[in-house]
């Protein structure tokens, strides 16, 4: 079953990349998927919604940034103030707009201490931004790189998304937590989700048959489509944040796998 068949992907889609625990590879996967889709000529918007541990600034650079996604969510600026287009710099066919989260400690503290009314406003602003990006700016894809677990920022992102890509690892607590999120949170919000298993020990993926059997087992456990099982690539982990594997090392198996995933998500 392809994702397109199973989930009826819309050509204008908001995808939230979420996980139960940190360090599953959400940001790397979000960034690479955004770059791949944009290289294919799609207009893509990538937003860092990990407000407590921002990291997209390390990939795209934050020099001279006046406004951040935090400012938009707190009604301190307009959508046009927070995005910058990196498509020329990265030699991409489609647009790739990026909105960063403010990495300063003071702003992270503000984000941790925000109250329920501020979070309600943040959700409304995020839903407004979705409309603006898909309808006014005609973006094909909006990718939300969320914070792990159940925080206001991550649940707001899941709420705004049309589909959630759950990135989970082989780790037992991560796996169980992700199952809980899928069966409780996503079903409460009536969200469609797909699963990507990352950092799987290579010895478990010795053959295509073994990989298919494992994929079926995970799909049964999650009751969701599993898009791929990615092995743990030490060379991906050792890359600097500024590297976008799919652009800088397109022939690497990690990049090839992500191209396949992007195509299944709807980039053909």
């Amino acid at each position: 079953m392809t994702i397109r068949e199973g989930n009826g992907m819309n050509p204008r889609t908001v995808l939230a990349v979420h996980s139960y625990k940190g360090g599953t590879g959400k940001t790397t996967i979000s960034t690479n998927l955004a770059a791949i889709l944009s290289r294919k000529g799609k207009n893509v918007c990538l937003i860092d919604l990990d407000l407590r541990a921002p990291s997209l600034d390390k990939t795209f650079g934050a020099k001279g940034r006046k406004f951040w996604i935090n400012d938009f969510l707190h009604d301190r600026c307009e959508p046009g103030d927070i995005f910058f287009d990196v498509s020329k710099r990265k030699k991409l066919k489609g647009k790739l707009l990026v909105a960063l989260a403010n990495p300063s400690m003071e702003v992270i503290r503000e984000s941790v201490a925000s109250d329920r009314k501020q979070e309600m406003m943040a959700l409304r602003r995020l839903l407004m931004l979705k409309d603006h990006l898909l309808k006014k700016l005609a973006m094909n894809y909006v990718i939300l790189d969320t914070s792990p677990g159940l925080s206001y920022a991550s649940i707001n992102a899941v709420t705004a998304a049309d589909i959630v890509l759950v990135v989970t690892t082989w780790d037992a607590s991560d796996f169980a937590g992700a199952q809980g999120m899928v069966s409780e949170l996503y079903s409460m919000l009536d969200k469609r989700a797909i699963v990507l298993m990352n950092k799987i020990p290579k010895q478990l993926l010795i053959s295509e048959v073994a990989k298919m059997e494992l994929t079926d087992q995970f799909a049964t456990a999650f009751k969701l489509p599993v898009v791929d099982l990615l092995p743990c690539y030490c060379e991906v982990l050792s890359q600097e944040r500024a590297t976008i594997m799919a652009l800088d090392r397109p022939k690497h198996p990690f990049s090839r796998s992500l191209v396949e995933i992007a195509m299944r998500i709807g980039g053909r």
Partner: protein
Amino acid sequence: MEMPAQLYKLEKALVRMERKIDLILGSVGKRHRAKGVGEVKGAGALDIMTLLSLPDHLRKTALTLTKLGKAMAEDVAKETGRARAIESAYLNQLVRMEYVWRERVGKRVYFSVGENTGGEGL
């Protein structure tokens, strides 16, 4: 044929009844608020954690209103695919729970989250 005219009359009667029910719900709500009785009261903010704590049928309505900002029961019904009268009842329940504001402009009743626009509610 007789039937379309009768159906038209019936529809008009139902709309009148719905308006009366809205008015009754509004005045009952006011009395309940004055007496301090009714459903579980919210603290005003319809944030995502509060939304998750609502029963399924109300969550769908509340999420849709959050998305729309300010809307009539009819607008919410268009989004959820449920009947206008059902959404009207759920929205009024959210008003009584003090999560949603209600404002009458002429014959129209608007519901909103987050800001007091001078209507009933919080």
